[in-house]
């Protein structure tokens, strides 16, 4: 069968303008499909990021906007299988000018002495860790954030509260490396409580982050924490950090469904483009197919050649589309986003292989009917065709 490949390739490119336009159409569709697949994979199928495997997040069962008593932390820490637990409070607020999107980055209140035990994937020099624990108004930033903002150790950072009616005045005492390239600023939860003063608000927090001792303990802990607070006034919902992060995506709607609909539409478009091209291409060559049959080519060989030709065109379009998709994902990685998966969005080998396989199958599938008809055409009928 491989001896037919040169003829297949020549036929695929015989009408260069049409083939080029078809390849470009498929490339455009495949580019979109590749990005959608990459997004789907990043959001729903990606393995846990470094450090995420053993981390749990406990929030209020009703909604993450409902607070939990800070006293839960001590009780959670007592559970067997918990290595560490700490407050994880979104501060929000405004840095300089909120209208400038470059000033947007994540700001969390945490417990400085526990941060690097709950998030062991973060790396920071020991003296900076000690400084962070010592200085109540100290803050630490990820190296990606510090680099983008041009911050150095000792930088004064002023935040204006929006969720909380306080304006922290922070000093950057450490810059940590985050393998997940998040742009995050951490400062002390105790400093926030101090600013809030006496009152119930300081005793309530948004979530707790828990580091389990091992992977086996993770599901057990999630259940144990929720059971422990089941009958309290603030019941919890505990889940892995990965599952917790996906909730933010769900705010946008049923992303899975959206992605699937877009993918289906793109796939259908490629199918139409490819089917149209192959139908035209085969119709023009009915006579040649008759000649090949006269020379002894069987209907099976004819079928194989036409399907292969469609497959070649689809693969060329697919490969070009994936190149474009790689460029597009690189551009999306640089853009501002609150979804972590977007920062690592890329055309991974499995996404690339899936996209190419789909393109090939669509190409072959779309040409099945014209190829079948051509293969079944009788020699005399084919030779009578004027093209």
């Amino acid at each position, binding site marked *: 069968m491989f*001896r*037919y490949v*040169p*003829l297949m390739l*020549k*036929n695929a490119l*015989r009408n260069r303008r049409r083939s080029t336009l078809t390849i470009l159409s498929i490339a455009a569709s495949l580019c979109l499909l590749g990005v959608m697949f990459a997004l789907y994979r990043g959001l729903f199928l990606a393995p846990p990021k470094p450090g995420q495997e053993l981390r749990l997040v406990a929030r209020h069962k009703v909604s993450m906007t409902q607070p939990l008593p800070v006293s839960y932390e001590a009780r959670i820490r007592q559970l067997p299988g918990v290595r560490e637990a700490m407050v994880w409070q979104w501060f929000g607020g405004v840095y300089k000018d909120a209208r400038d999107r470059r000033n947007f980055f994540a700001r969390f209140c945490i417990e400085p002495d526990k941060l690097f035990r709950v998030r062991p994937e973060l790396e920071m020099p020991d003296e900076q860790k000690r400084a962070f624990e010592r200085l109540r108004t100290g803050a630490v930033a990820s190296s990606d954030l510090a680099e983008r903002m041009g911050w150095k150790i000792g930088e004064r950072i002023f935040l204006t509260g929006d969720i909380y009616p306080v304006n922290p005045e922070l000093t950057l005492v450490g810059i940590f490396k985050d393998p997940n390239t998040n742009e995050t600023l951490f400062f002390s939860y105790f400093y926030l409580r101090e600013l809030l003063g006496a009152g119930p608000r300081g005793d309530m927090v948004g979530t707790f982050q828990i580091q389990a001792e091992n992977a086996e303990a993770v599901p057990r802990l999630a259940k144990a924490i929720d059971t422990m607070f089941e009958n309290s006034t603030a019941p919890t919902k505990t889940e892995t950090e990965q599952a917790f992060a996906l909730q933010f995506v769900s705010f946008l709607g049923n992303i899975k469904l959206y992605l699937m609909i877009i993918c289906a539409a793109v796939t259908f478009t490629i199918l139409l483009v490819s089917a149209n091209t192959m139908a035209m291409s085969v119709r023009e060559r009915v*006579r*040649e197919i008759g*000649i*090949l*049959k*006269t*020379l*002894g*080519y*069987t*209907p*099976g*060989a004819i079928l194989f050649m036409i399907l292969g030709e469609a497959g070649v065109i689809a693969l060329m379009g697919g490969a070009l589309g994936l190149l474009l998709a790689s460029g597009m994902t690189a551009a999306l990685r640089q853009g501002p986003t609150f979804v972590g998966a977007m920062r690592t969005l890329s055309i991974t080998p499995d996404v690339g292989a899936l996209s190419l396989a789909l393109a090939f199958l669509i190409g072959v599938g779309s040409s099945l009917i014209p190829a079948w008809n051509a293969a079944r055409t*009788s*020699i*005399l009928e084919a*030779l009578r065709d004027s093209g």
Partner: protein
Amino acid sequence: MTETVIQTRDLTKEFIRDEFHVVALKDANLEVRKGEFVALMGPSGSGKSTLLHLIAAMDRPTDGEILVLGENLRSLSDRAIARWRNEHIGFVFQSFNLIPVLTAIENVELPLKLTALKKKERMEHAATALKLVGLGDRLGHLPRQLSGGQEQRVAIARAIVTDPDLILADEPTGNLDAQSAQEILTLLGRLNKEFGKTILLVTHDPHAARFASRIRHLEKGELLPEGQVPADYTVAPM
């Protein structure tokens, strides 16, 4: 005794076209022996091409028997017929029918792709066939870069490259100027005389038919007895 290459007995082909019952060929009895060069002559619609197509197993008869190279074509499957055609038949068309995206040598190589020959061997065979038809210097030319006569010679090279037992030529000079037609007919004559190829030539041109060793005439779907010509048949002077 000379081997019989083609033998038809009461061969009939009928078909329905636009609700009309058409008898394209009726009770045709033809025998062609090995090494013969036979011309089938007749006006348009006389059934000569139909007979050729039946002999090449490109069509199936309605009735009658047909034995080609000892094979009863009616008993073969489509797949077996395709293989048989590749091994035993060389076909030359009126309109050359070369694949436009392939070079001369690639066109000639096409039938060999169905054999067990390796690429190098196939190319050697194809080059030899092209040299035989006088196109040894046009191996890499595309059909559009060749004249009509040269294209037909490539088609002949393609027809002979598998060393077939029988060459079937359907109006091979119909699209050529007089000079090129003469060259093609001379080439076919050479293949018959020097290489012993059995040739069946369909033509309505009396001049072309003169290259054959035997002429059979058809009229209104009937193959006339040996030596008999249609009443209105006139032979143009050479």
